[in-house]
C-alpha cells in the first residue's frame, strides 16, 4: 500500500483538477508498488459483449499497455490475450484463482449477462461431462467469491446494447444477477481507458471502492455533464444550431445527448487527446447513461430535463426524471435568454473551441 499518494490527491488527479499530463503514467508506479505489496489479483471475464471495452483498455496511453499487462495488474485471465485456451483457461485461470483467493480478488466484467434459454445464448466453456458452462453460471460462481465486481462498459453496468428492446436474449446487468457483492459501474460504449485504469488503481491502492453516484459510477470521472463543458457550448448559448453534419453550431437539433450525459470526455478527450465525439462534428449519443441506447441517436430529444440550473449531478437528474418538474430544452434556452445569460451575437463572431 502506497503511503505517498493520498486519496485526496488521487481524486484530484482523476477528476482532472490537478495538473497531471497523463493519469495512468502518474499512477503506474503507485500501482506497481501496490501489486508488489500483494494487492489482490484481477480476473476479467466477457459475456454478451463486443470486446470494445478490452480494445479501449489497450488504448491506454501511459504507461503503454505493456506496463499495465505485465507489471501493474495481475491480469490472470483475459479472453483475448491469455495464452491459455479451453480447459486450461476456465479451470486454471478462472476457477482456481477465484477459489484460492476467496473474497480477495477483483472481478472485471465486460458484457451483459444473457439469462434467456437457460443462459445458452452465451456459453463460455464445457464441463468434464460435456455440459455447457453458461456465462450466467460462471458469473454467479465467480462473482459471489469476489471482493468487488467492476463492470467495464454500459452492457455489464446497465444492460446496454444487447439488453435493448426487444432484448432478444433476456440480457441483464451484472447487478441483477449477482447480489451482495460491492459493484462499481464504469459505463461508456466503450469506457475511456483512463476511467478503467483509474478505477482499478483506486481499488488496488486503497483496497476500497471510490465514491459512487446513484448509478454506481465513480464520481471522479462521471460527475460532470457533457453539455456544460462542451467546446460547442458557446453556440448553444448564442442559439446557433447545426442543421446538417459538417456545419458549425450546437448539435442538439441533430440529436446530441450532451445535456443528459455524464462523463469528462470534453476535457479528457479520446485516443491520446486526438478528438472526441462532438469534437469530430458528431453528436454525443449518451453512452454512459443507464438508458443507452434506448433513445434515437439522431433525433432531437423532445424534452431536455435539465431545468434552469444547467449544472446538475446524476442524482439530481434522477430526481428530475422521476418528478414532474422536467423542463423542455426550449424552456432551458428561453430561461437563458430571459436571464440575460446569453445575448444575440453575430454568428461569425462565434469561434469553435479547439480540442
Amino acid at each position, binding site marked *: 500500500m502506497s503511503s505517498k499518494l493520498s486519496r485526496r490527491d488521487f481524486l484530484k488527479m482523476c477528476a482532472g483538477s490537478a495538473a497531471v499530463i497523463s493519469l495512468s503514467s502518474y499512477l503506474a508506479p503507485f500501482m506497481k508498488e501496490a501489486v508488489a505489496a500483494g494487492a489482490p489479483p484481477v480476473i476479467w471475464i466477457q459475456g454478451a459483449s463486443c*470486446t*470494445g471495452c478490452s480494445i479501449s483498455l489497450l*488504448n491506454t496511453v501511459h504507461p503503454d499497455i*505493456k506496463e499495465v499487462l*505485465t507489471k501493474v495488474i495481475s491480469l490472470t485471465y483475459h479472453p483475448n490475450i491469455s495464452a491459455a485456451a479451453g480447459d486450461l483457461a476456465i479451470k486454471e485461470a478462472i476457477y482456481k484463482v477465484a477459489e484460492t483467493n476467496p473474497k480477495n480478488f477483483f472481478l472485471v466484467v465486460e458484457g451483459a449477462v444473457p439469462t*434467456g434459454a437457460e443462459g445458452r445464448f452465451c456459453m463460455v466453456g*464445457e464441463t468434464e461431462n460435456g455440459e455447457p458452462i453458461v456465462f450466467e453460471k460462471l458469473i454467479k460462481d465467480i462473482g459471489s467469491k469476489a471482493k468487488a465486481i467492476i463492470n467495464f462498459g454500459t452492457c455489464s453496468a446497465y444492460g446496454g446494447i444487447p439488453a435493448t428492446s*426487444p432484448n432478444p436474449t433476456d440480457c441483464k446487468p451484472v447487478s441483477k444477477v449477482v447480489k451482495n457483492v460491492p459493484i462499481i459501474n464504469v459505463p461508456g460504449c466503450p469506457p475511456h481507458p483512463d476511467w478503467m485504469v483509474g478505477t482499478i488503481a483506486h481499488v488496488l491502492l486503497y483496497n476500497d471502492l471510490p465514491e459512487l453516484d446513484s448509478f454506481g459510477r465513480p464520481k471522479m470521472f462521471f460527475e460532470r455533464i457533457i453539455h456544460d463543458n462542451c467546446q460547442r457550448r458557446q453556440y448553444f448559448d448564442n442559439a446557433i444550431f447545426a442543421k446538417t453534419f459538417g456545419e458549425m453550431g450546437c448539435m442538439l437539433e441533430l440529436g446530441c445527448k450532451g445535456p443528459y450525459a455524464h462523463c469528462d470526455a470534453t476535457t479528457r478527450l479520446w*485516443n491520446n487527446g486526438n478528438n472526441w*465525439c462532438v469534437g469530430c462534428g458528431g453528436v454525443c449519443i449518451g453512452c454512459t447513461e443507464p438508458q443507452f441506447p434506448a433513445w434515437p441517436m439522431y433525433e432531437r430529444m423532445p424534452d431536455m430535463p435539465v431545468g434552469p440550473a444547467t449544472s446538475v449531478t446524476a442524482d439530481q437528474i434522477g430526481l428530475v426524471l422521476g418528478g414532474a418538474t422536467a423542463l423542455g430544452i426550449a424552456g432551458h434556452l428561453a430561461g437563458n435568454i430571459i436571464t440575460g445569460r446569453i445575448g444575440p451575437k453575430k454568428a461569425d463572431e462565434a469561434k469553435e473551441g479547439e480540442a
Partner: protein
Amino acid sequence: MAKIIVDPVTRIEGHLKLEVEIEDNVVVDAWTSGTLWRGMELIMQGRDPRDAEQIMQRICGVCPTAHATAGILALDDAMGIEPPPNGRIIRNLIFGSNYLQSHILHFFHLAALDYVKGPDMAPFKPRYEADYRLPADINAQAVDIYLEALTIRRKAQEMLAIWGGKMPHVQAIVPGGVSEVPNTSKIYKFLAYLEEIQTFIDTKYIPTVKAVAGVYSDWFSIGAGCQNFLCYGGFPQEEGLDHVKKKKFFDSGVYVRGQYKELDIGLITEEVTHSWYADDTGGNTPDVAVVTADAKKKGAYSWIKSPRYNGEAMEVGPLARQWIAKNPDVLALGDKAFSVMGRHFARAIETSQIAKAMKEWALQLQPGQPVCTPHELPKKEVVGVGLCEGSRGALGHWHRISSDGRTMVYNAVVPTTWNSGPRTGSGAATVRGPMEEAIVGTRVADPSNPVELVRIIRSMDPCYGCAIHVMTPNKKTISQFAIN
C-alpha cells in the same frame, strides 16, 4: 475414434467452441460452434434506420468501422445519396486505419503466441506447451515486437480518431458522408502517424511473419480449406451511385473451384441446416431472410448461419482479396497460399498496401470543402445494400426500411459467418464450412495439447461477436426454451 474439444478458444474475438474427431492423431471431422447470440438485428427492428451505423458497429469492438461502413453504405444506397469526395476519402481513411490496427493486433496479439513463447507470467501463462521452435534470440526479438505492436496498434486507433472522433466505436460516419471537416493540420498529423506505422509494418511486422514462416514452413501445407474465395470489393475510389460497380481499391470477384468469375450477389443465400434456427427459414437471400431460433434443433450445433455462394462454401479475408486481386507475391506461393502461413502472409502484405494507399488518399483531401450530402429518409419502402471488405473479409449489410421510416428487416452477412459457419447438406452432399474443411486432415501430435487446431482457427482471424447476430422475428419461439 477420439474426440478433442477446445472450449473456449481464446485470443479470438468472441466465443467459439471447436470439436474434432481424430483417428490415429489425424482429424477426420470437425465442428465449429459459435456460442454467443445477442440478436443485434432484432434490436434494429422498428428503430430509426439512421441508428444502424451506431447500433450495428457495436456488433464488434475490434472492427466497428467495418460495420459502421457497411451500415452507412446501405443507408446511402437506400436514400439514393453519395458522399462528396471528402466524405468518401475520410470514410476510407477511417476504415483503412482500422485495417492497420486490426491486422497488427491479430498477428501479434491473437495469433503470434502460438509460435512465439511469451514470458513466464500471466497472461502468457498458463498455455499449451507445445511446438515452440523459434531460436531463442529470434523469439526474444518477437516478444519485444509483440510489446511494441501494442503501442503501434494504439497509434493506429489514435490516427483513426483524428477523423472518426474516437475509437472503438466511431462517431463521425453519418449518412451522406462524415461529420469531420479536414484541415491541413489534421492531414499532417495523420500522415505523421502513418509514416511511423508504415515503418513498423515494413521493418517489423512483415519480417516477423517471414521469420515465423521460415521456421514453421510446414504450415504452408496445413489448413488449406475449401479453396474458394469471395471478395465484395472495398474502398471506393470514385463517386457514383452504383455501389457495386464503382471503382474500388480491392476488386470484387469470386474464385470457385479453380475459376475466376465476376461476383453476382444474387447467388448468395444463408443456410441453416445445422444452425439453431428453424429449417424452413433457410435458403433465402439476405434482403428478405428472417430466421426463427430453435435452440433444441436436432443436428444443429451453432448459432452461426452458413452463407453459400451458389451452394459453395467460400473463404473470405485477406487471402481471398489478394488471390482475387492476383497479387504476384501471393500467386507465387501457388498451392502453398492455401494454408495457415499463406493467410498470415497475405494479411501482412495487405497491411503495407493499405498504409501506402492511405498516404495518397489523405493528400487528395480538400480542406474546408463539404464532407456530407444532406439527406432525408425516403417516403416509400426501400432496401439498401451495403457491401464492403472488412479487415476479416467480405461484409454485407441488407437494410429494409418501411415507408414510415422504420427499420423492417436487417441482415448482416459477415466474414466470420462465411468462414466459420457450420456445414450444410447431409451425407455425401455435406459441404463443411471453410474453417471445418481447413481443420479436417490435420495431424494433431499431442491430443492433450492441440495447438495445431487453434493455429488453423486463428489464421482465419475469426470474430464471433460479428458472426452471431442474427435475429428472429418470432419472440414466442425464444420463450419456449427460456426459463423465465
